[in-house]
């Protein structure tokens, strides 16, 4: 953990700590919501430990408690979490470590840890940012859930405290720098518009996934030229240091790569 701190500078650690703290508050509101709805203490605590995905926890919980049944509740949560599959591909290089570490490291894959990792270009800093955010978030999310569940009935309404604004705020603050790149901004706006337009009539989770239509449509526009350069699968040895990693480092991460550098300049 000490080497993590040495790799990351202080302002980045402060940002990570702030996000973790904010998500701890959201975790507390989840714990409070669960016990207020009449669930035993272990339900929110086990969910936060084993699922560790805010949106899905809220969605699954709402449906299950609302009498929607196990299948519908789990399906909604998993659809919402399907985005983690895409995230996993974008930061897979970060988790290219020995197996025990990879198994544990995968569990702290979240919107936030991915956003922090993507903001860094240097491989060591990417990994350090990912792990620092992931581990800290895991700690605050679970501590928050436990505290919220314990004092839930006395705190009162999380909505009255405006805590439901914390999660979207954290996500937006994280994604803003990536939107400086025009192509990415167009893709994201188109996708977000589709998501918002479908919220009224699609089950929870699906609208967010439909946001993928934005980047996919824009990809088709520029597809013809680049098809020529596309390569098939290569053997494992070559792939480790292969063009895949470079593609992220040079091409995509730069713009998405946040204006941590730009902001300072």
């Amino acid at each position: 953990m000490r080497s993590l701190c040495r790799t990351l500078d202080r302002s980045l650690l402060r940002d990570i700590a702030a996000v973790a703290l904010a998500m701890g508050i959201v975790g507390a509101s989840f714990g409070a919501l669960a016990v207020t709805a009449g669930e035993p203490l272990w339900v929110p605590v086990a969910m936060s430990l084993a699922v560790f995905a805010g949106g899905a926890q809220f969605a699954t919980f709402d449906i299950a408690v609302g009498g929607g049944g196990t299948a519908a509740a789990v399906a909604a949560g998993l659809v919402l979490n399907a985005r983690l599959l895409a995230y996993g591909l974008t930061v897979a290089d970060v988790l290219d470590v020995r197996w025990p570490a990879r198994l544990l490291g995968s569990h702290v894959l979240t919107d936030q840890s991915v956003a922090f990792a993507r903001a860094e270009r240097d491989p060591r800093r990417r990994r350090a940012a990912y792990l620092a955010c992931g581990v800290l978030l895991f700690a605050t999310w679970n501590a928050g859930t436990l505290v919220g569940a314990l004092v839930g009935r006395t705190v009162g309404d999380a909505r009255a405290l405006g805590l439901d604004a914390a999660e979207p705020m954290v996500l937006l603050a994280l994604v803003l720098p990536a939107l400086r790149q025009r192509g990415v901004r167009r893709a994201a706006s188109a996708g977000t518009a589709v998501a918002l337009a479908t919220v009224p009539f699609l089950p929870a989770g699906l609208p967010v996934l439909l946001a993928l239509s934005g980047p996919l449509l824009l990809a088709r526009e520029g597809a013809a030229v680049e098809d020529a350069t596309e390569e098939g699968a290569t053997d494992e040895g070559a792939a480790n240091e292969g063009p895949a990693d470079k593609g992220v480092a040079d091409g995509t991460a730069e713009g998405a790569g946040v204006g941590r550098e730009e902001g300072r300049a």
Partner: protein
Amino acid sequence: MTVQTVALLAVGTYLLRWCGPLVHGRVDLSPRFQTVLSASATALLCAMAAVSALTTGHGFAGWARPLGVLAGVVLALRGVSFLVVVVVAATITALLRLAGVS
């Protein structure tokens, strides 16, 4: 809420997380695919933020939360720190509700 619900969601979520790292190093993703993937992650984050800022269930969340978040975004664009941004968003949302705006 049953044990099965929690267990199924946990296992399924873990498998979704695990796929990316599992595939890494075995399949060589083309640069174009990587670009699309990166834009996809940004689009998903944006959509997630917009949906959770603006909606509750299948409808509009009311004005308090989006206005609170909007105030936070303005501060974030000016380079104000994360924690302040989040606290301001929550405070403005809470104050608006106190004032009777849902």
